[in-house]
């Protein structure tokens, strides 16, 4: 079963890459871009048929490795 995870910076944490992307988009005449936050996306193939169990495993993975909870939030989608 494939589980998808999105890791993003917490609100309030400076995202200089996102800022640079936003400014570049603005410079390309996408003037209505007000903010960009960059994140990471994972597709994790788990040998588990029960979706609830698979998601609970991935949740543990997020806490232990995939996200650093000092600055990042994660979402299992």
């Amino acid at each position: 079963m494939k589980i998808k995870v999105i890791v993003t910076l917490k609100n309030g944490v400076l995202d200089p890459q996102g800022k640079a992307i936003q400014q570049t988009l603005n410079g390309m005449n996408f003037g209505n871009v007000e903010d960009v936050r960059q994140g990471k996306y994972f597709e994790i193939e788990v040998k588990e048929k029960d979706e609830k169990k698979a998601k609970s495993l991935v949740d543990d993975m997020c806490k232990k490795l995939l996200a650093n909870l000092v600055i990042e939030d994660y979402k299992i989608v």
Partner: protein
Amino acid sequence: MRSSVIIFPGSNCDRDMDVALKKFGFNNQMVWHNDQSIPKSDLIVLPGGFSYGDYLRCGSIASKSKIIKSVIDFANSGGLVLGICNGFQILTETGLLNGILQQNKFLNFICSNVYVKVKDKQNKYFKDLKKDVLELHIAHNEGNYFCSDDELKSLEDNSQIAVTYCGVDGAENEKTNPNGAIKNIAGIFNRNKNVLGMMPHPERMIDKYLSGEDGSLFFKNILDNFK
């Protein structure tokens, strides 16, 4: 004094560290990351570099490597653990040190000499150090130290801030902050002050003809305090 330098795939300051430690009389040995245990040591060093290619987050993969459990046990039993640059990043990822090193504020890789102010001398690394401001070298893309407000308060309350970026005169301000680190933080201790992580490289400042010798002071001081 016996020391061990851990080598991860992608470490690139391990041999410089080996040269520096031996120069000042440490009995140093190199330890591979896949080993399960560390030879008897008084100091363990996690060197600079790009362990595991900086994949996922700097230091995150190394912080789960086989050898790390021994490093954590050693640190928790009071042993001296020093993480330089990528070593600092690894220490934050293990949880031995608070916070995280984010990408530099202006998105640039910085390679230059900097001055750092020694903020606390009640520890085995800086006790009786003759200088308050050291000239050291930094080379990093992710050195922008960040932690939560609560963690920062706790670092300040317990004098866990080890070194801060400053000017030659010791002035700490935005101008003397190369990478956007909060409070100009360049290095911190754990609560017991046996674990030190810092971005600047003392091992690059051990030769008066090549660089400068403020790094020599740092290594000599560790030895003096151990005796």
